[in-house]
Structures are given as structure tokens and as C-alpha cells.
């Protein structure tokens, strides 16, 4: 039995679906960020797998993943800073409470 593209991508798809589900259903902002990380991660896997299987002689996919991880880290750090700041203001991290830009 060979491990092919399909087999690597199925977990990635499931992971992406979970990310979508979590993003749409969770009310906790940190949980939403976690779902976002899941989706990002699923995309990273995509890049790597396609790079490895289809274009083994090049490294664009890998590099993309590398940068994506860096950006994800930056984005998470910033997002968490904002969430903590919001929490300080309203003592809550519930996304449904925060529908106004100014409070």
C-alpha cells in the first residue's frame, strides 16, 4: 500500500472542517482563535503535501508554510493581546457581547 496525496489530505480536510465548525459555534474568543489555528494548520499541511508530491524538486510550498507559521504566530499574539484588553474592559471574552466598536 502506498501513502498517496489523498491519504495525507483527508486529515487536513477534517481539521479544516473542525476549524470552520469551531469558528462558527464557539462563543469564547480564545476558542475561536484556536479554531482559526486549526484551519491555518490544515492549509499548511496542504501546501507541504502538494509540494512534496507534485513538485518535489522545488521548495515554494515549504517556504509558504514557513512564512504562514510566522504570520500565524504574529497574528495570534496580536489577537490575544486584543482579547485580553477587551477582557479588561468588559470582564468577558464572549464574542456575542462585543458587537459594538466603541463601548
Amino acid at each position: 500500500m502506498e501513502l498517496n496525496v489523498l491519504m495525507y489530505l483527508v486529515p487536513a480536510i477534517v481539521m479544516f472542517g473542525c476549524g470552520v465548525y469551531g469558528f462558527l459555534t464557539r462563543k469564547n474568543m480564545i476558542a475561536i482563535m484556536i479554531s482559526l489555528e486549526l484551519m491555518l494548520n490544515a492549509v499548511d499541511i496542504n501546501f507541504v503535501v502538494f509540494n512534496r508530491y507534485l513538485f518535489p524538486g522545488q521548495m515554494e510550498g515549504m517556504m509558504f508554510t514557513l512564512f504562514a507559521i510566522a504570520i500565524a504566530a504574529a497574528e495570534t499574539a496580536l489577537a490575544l493581546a486584543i482579547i485580553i484588553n477587551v477582557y479588561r474592559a468588559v470582564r468577558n471574552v464572549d464574542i456575542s457581547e462585543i458587537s459594538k466598536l466603541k463601548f
Partner: protein
Amino acid sequence: MPFSYSIAVVALPLLMFLVLGLLDDRLGRRTAGVIGTVAMLVTTVLAYGVALTYFFGTGQGQIVDGIRQTVTVWNPAWLTFTEDLVVRMGIALDPIAAMMLVVITTVSLMVHLYSLGYMSNHEGEPEKGYQRYYAFLGLFTFSMLGLVVATNIFQVFIFFEMVGVSSYLLIGFYYTSPAAVHASKKAFIVTRLADLFFLLGILILSFYTGTFDFESLVGTGGAAARVAQGSAHGGTFMGISIMAWALTFIFIGGAGKSAMYPLHIWLPDAMEGPTPVSALIHAATMVVAGVYLVAKLFPLYVLEQGAMDVIAVVGAFTAFYAAAIACTQSDIKRALAFSTISQIAFMMTSLAVSSSDVALAVSPSDALIEIHGGRGLGYMASMFHLFTHAMFKALLFLCAGAIIHAVGSNENSAMHGLHKHMPITSIAFLIGCLAIAGIPPFAGFWSKDEILVACYAKGLGWGLWMTMVAGLTAFYMFRLYLLIFFWSDHKQHGHHAPADAHWTMTVPLIILAAISVVAGFVPAHDMVTWDGKPLHTQLDWTVAGSSVLVACLGIGLAWRLYYKENDAPERMKAAASGLWTAAYHRFYMDELYQFITHKVIFQCVSKPIAWFDRKVIDGTMNLMGTVTQYCAAMVRPLQSGKVQAYVLTYLIGALVLAAALIACVLI
């Protein structure tokens, strides 16, 4: 006295208005009254000085070659719209302006003095707004003086409106009384309607002649040229020349102020104001503004005989109509008001009939160049009557005020037999009545006689009609006099007997009575003629004799019916009950107006328009608003601020795009 003093004559009442109006309650009641009266006294002295200088002085350009000139004292540009369109504000003296200065300041001074006593209390309480009253009197006097010395017709219009406003303010002086409020509104609306026509007339006139100034409109050589120019440019409208339209419109403006039929309805109601105000505004000065206006433009009217005929017919009819109503009124102020209407109609008619003899004398083209001596008697008579009437009618109103003050009612049924209680007032009133009835040598005789001469000159019918009205005048005035002062001696007058009033009130009566006796000897024919040339008049014994006879007949009839209490008036009333009731109700003119405004205009015009405005215009606006609001309400949830909703929308879009992409690739 230099004519520049006339600026002070006009400015002083304005200053009084500002001072009294602005200080208001900060001034004591008595102080305000005394300040106003003293200022008015100064104004009067100055005005007499100016007028006497104008008539009898020399060296200031009053008379050139035996013709009285219009002297422009001061005429600065006020509004400069364009090079050609300049509105000026200024002071010009001509014979009638100088005469009006005397009339206005005299009556105004008398009223100021009289009001010191009359207005000191109202129904037993100290009058509130005493200062306000004197401020308004100042405003009115200023406006009226500004009107008569106007240099151009636009200035006349402005001051026309201002006298309207002061009249409105003073009629509604007792603003807590609904009747006064209604009366002031009525006066304002009716005169405003008339002023609309006046403005239209001014606009047409000045558009086609290119000027507002009296000097260029009616000055030497002006009128004929202007009329020719206007007619040439304007042509005709509905078969009548455009100038005739303009002049008729201007007359309608004057008719509104001068209470000519059918615009007279406000004047009787205006009697709700304080009586001295009625004497000043609604008897002596403001109501003659219309006559004055026509007189000012007389050279133009001469050339448009059609407009003059309208005035003559309206005047003659109004004179009779108002006199007939005056015979039935029980409210003494209203009777006097109708008498005023009748007398003003005399003046109007006189003006109108005189134009024909002027016009007949000369061909229209050179009407003013070929000045024909001895014509224009009616003009002179009209102005003379304006002068004498102002004096004796002010006297009658002030007497009525004194009576009302003493009795506390306007109805003559509350009076009767006051002669022995109020002898001074009674004699003054009698002098006024004799003057208005045209008994020599009192003032009214001389002026009315000349009016009648002018009417006979127009035609026998006119003369007879006006003589008949003069007889009616004598009748209703003596009916009034006898019902107030005689009829019955046994009348109970409340708990204290009425008596002659305080000296501030009786002195004006005595002064005005004296003037009413001697005013007829003023040589008006030398002073106020339409072309500035002296007129050579002599008493026409036929006319004078017949008019005195008719007046005596009227007086005699009144004496027979009303001197002693009897049932003859009641029997007469019963015999002609329909006629009497109709006259008592002023021939239902007010009801007609009510019907027209409420039933016709409000119901048939205003209501549909209001409906259209509310339903269609507002409805369209509301519909637009509602639709916008509805759309906004539909769109608004998209911007809920809920991040997950945004993401869901985004996801759906992404999925659709992805599906489309895949489908494209597969196909």
C-alpha cells in the same frame, strides 16, 4: 423756520417710540405719559412752524411764479438695487403734506394729552401697559408722518404697512379681550389684502413708468409723459389700459385703509381699541391715508378717467351705505365709525368727481402743461374736508371716550340724559355734530359745501345723491347726540353720577371744539390745490342753501324722534323692520365675508389644498422616508457587529466560488 426742521418732526415720534418702548416698565406710568406728551408738543410746534413757513413764508422755494412747489427737504438713497432701481427715503413738502403735518400732530397731541386721563385706569384698575400704549402712539405718529412726507410711492407703501402695524397693535391693545384680538386680526388681514393690490399697483406703475418718485411721476410735465410711456409700453389688458389697472389697484390699497365698501368691514370692529386710538387712527389720520394716496397721484388719475369713475361710484355708494348703517347703530363708537366711513367716502367721491372737470378742461397730452385755473375744486374740497373732518371727528370720538369713561358702556341705552351731568362734553359733542352736519359757520359746512359744489359740477344726480347723504349725516349724528344727552332724564347711572372728566380730558375737547368752530375759515382754496395755484371760489348760494336746508331737515327729524322719550322710533322701527334689521346688521356684509371665507374659500379651496398637501405631498415624503427606513432595516442586520455572522457570510461566498470553480474545471 427752515424746512430741515421737518426731519425732527418725523424723527421725534420715532425717538419717543424707541425710548418708551425700550424703557417700558423702567419708566413710571405718569413719567412715560408726560414724556410722550411733551415730545408730541415739541413735534407739534415744529410741525406748525414748518407748515406755516411752507404756506406763508417765502425764500425757500415754496412758491415759484405763484405756484406752490414741492420742496424736497431730504432724499437720500436707501436701497440701491441697480443704477436705475433706487429706493429713496426722504421728506418732501407739498401743500397736502404740509396740511397733513398739521392735522396729524394736532390730533396726536390732543390724543396724547387726553390719554393721560383716559388711560390712567381700566375698569377701576391702574392700566397695565400704559408705557406700551404711549410707545405705540409714538410709533403710529412716526409712521403716519413718514407716510405723508414720502418722496416716492415705495416709501408710501412702507409707511402704509407701518401704520397698519401700529393700528393692529393699538386695536389689540386690550389683548386679553378676545373681541379686541379678533378685531385687530381682522383689521390686519383686510388691510393686508388691500395692500397686496397696492403693491401690485406700485409694481405695475413703476415697471412701466420706470420710477417710484412722485416728483418724476406727477411733477410738472411728468404725469402726462409717464402715462403715455406706461400705456405705450404696457398697452392694454382686458381692454383697459395697463395704467388704469395700476391706478385701480393702488386705489384698492387706499380703499382698504380708508374703509371703502366692500373693504370697510374692519373699521367698525377696530372700535375695540382704546377710544383715543379710535380718534387718532380710525377717525382722523390713518383712515384718510387712502384719500391722501389718491390725492398724491391725482395728476395720474386725471389722465385715467376709468379708474376715477370706479372711485367715484365706490365713494358715492359707500357714503350712503355707511350713513344708512350709522342711523341704526346703538353702540356709539360704531355709529361714529360708520360716520367716519361715510365722511371718507365723501372725500373720495369729491376727489373722483373733480378729476373729470380737470380732464375735460385740457386734453390728456398736455394736462399739466396747460394748467387751467379754477379747476380741481373737488380736490381742494376733499383735502379741506379731510382737514376739518379730522378735527371734528377726533372731537366726537374724544367726547365719546369721555362719555364711555363716565358711564362704563358703549351702548347708548346706558346713557340718556347726560346733558346736565356732563355739560362741557355735551357742548363739545354738539359742536362736533353741528360741524359734521354742515351747519354754518362750523367747519364742516365750508368743506362739505365745496364737495357738493364739485358733485353738482359732475352732474345733477351726483349732487343730489351726496346732498341726500349729507342730510342723512345730520340725522344720524343728532340721533346719536340726543340719545346720549337727552331722551330721558330718569336714567339711573350706577352708584355715582357721571360727570365731566379730568382736565387732561376736557382740555383737548375744548381745543378741538374751538378748532371745529373756526377751521372752516382757513383759506384752503389758496393753500391746497392740485396744481399749486390758488383757486378762486365763492359760495354757491343755491348749493349751500339747499344743503343747509337738508341738514336742518335731518336735525329736525332727529329732534322730533329722539329729544324726548316717546314711542315714535319704535313704531318707525316696526314699520320698516326688515330694512332696519338689515341696516343694524350692516347689511350682512360681515356674514357675507364669513360665508365667503369659511364656506367657500376654506371649504372649497383650502380644504382640498390642505388635503392634497397632507396626503399627496406629505404622503410622498413619508413614503420615501418609510421605504428608506424599511430598506435600512433590512440591510442593518448585515452590520450586526457579530463576527461569526460575517464569517458565515464569507464562508458561503467562498464555498459558492469554490463550487463554481470546480464545476468550471469539470465541465
